[in-house]
């Protein structure tokens, strides 16, 4: 009995966090969809942990809890992989931006340089 109290409270807290982050525009939609799906699976499972027992037995797994653990680990691995992919993409994008900035700086400097050179020349002529 205590177990289902803990799991259901955890599930509800998780769903609350997700909804709040979404409400504050802190989560992009692509992540929001994933986490909403996770949240809506966790809450009923938290309330009735024995829900998955029959499905688990059908798959040859002794208890529903094991099935939940297995599915959870697979999901987390996929999420990690997705984050690595996202950060690789972001690094590539920031690299491109950095290069563009360097080229724009160089172009700006080139535009200003003739004036500087001319100024130096007139200084030299005067001195």
């Amino acid at each position, binding site marked *: 009995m205590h177990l289902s109290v803990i799991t259901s409270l955890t599930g509800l807290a998780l769903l609350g966090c997700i909804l709040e982050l979404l409400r504050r525009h802190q989560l992009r939609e692509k992540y929001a969809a994933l986490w909403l799906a996770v949240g809506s699976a966790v809450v009923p499972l938290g309330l009735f942990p024995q829900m998955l027992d029959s499905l688990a037995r059908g798959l040859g797994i002794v208890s529903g809890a094991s099935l939940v653990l297995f599915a959870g680990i697979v999901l987390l691995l996929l999420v990690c992989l997705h984050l690595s992919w996202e950060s690789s993409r972001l690094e590539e994008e920031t*690299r491109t931006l*950095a*290069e563009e*900035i*360097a*080229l724009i*700086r*160089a*172009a700006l*400097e*080139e535009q200003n340089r003739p004036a500087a050179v001319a100024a130096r020349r007139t200084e030299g002529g005067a001195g």
Partner: protein
Amino acid sequence: MTPGSGTDAAAGSGAAAGTGARRVLVIVPAWNEAEGLAAVLAELRAAVPAADVLVVDDGSTDRTAQTARAAGALVARLPYNLGVGGAMRTGYRYALDQGYDAAVQVDADGQHDPGYVPALLAALETADLVVGARFAGVGDYRVRGPRRWSMRLLSLVLSGMAGTRLTDSTSGFRACNRDMIAFFARWYPAEYLGDTVESMVGALRRGYQVRQVAVAMRPRTTGVPSQSSARALVYLARTALVLLLALTRRVPAPQRAESATRVPEPAEPAGAAR
């Protein structure tokens, strides 16, 4: 970005056989190299007086950019350190935008003798990418143990792909023609060994002609080479991994039309794009 540079370049590529007519950009990636840079730039000016020199300051915290500017070089300053690959792609983008006919990469640490630059440029007659190689008979650069095995592995695989001897694929002393510039401006790996090994594998897989020219390398004027054997073993493993990834990863096609399409841009009604 100078108007008309595209047409000049198009006319120039026809006359590229005469070395005097082609526009050459020397790209010097530099990260905190203020000490040795002035000497390298002075030697470059003496060796290839007609070439423009672009120093790509890779997020230096010392006076690298000022030193380069004082020596009369063009300077592109990256906002933070990207590694040699990022600095080099910046350089190749500049070369592509400005319509250069050839680009030469020279390290800022004094390891590469600018005196060999004309030889590299001359070899572009028969190749798209020319690499200045240390182990080809000239000079006395020696390595032993696992580091040597890594070099052997690299040279075996790359020579096989190129159909010509490539003994020093980790050399950062190289020259490129226009096609190669267009390719590297789009794709130049920035990861470990990406700027040397992976970029060369990519060029070979895209069917570019790569060949080497023997050069003697000087001891670096700054920095210390790492020589411990544990490090060399790690190096071997990483080399093998980089090689494996380079051989299997997708390599994007170059956008040959890019330099041509960029030039007419000002002809469009101003303000239409913005």
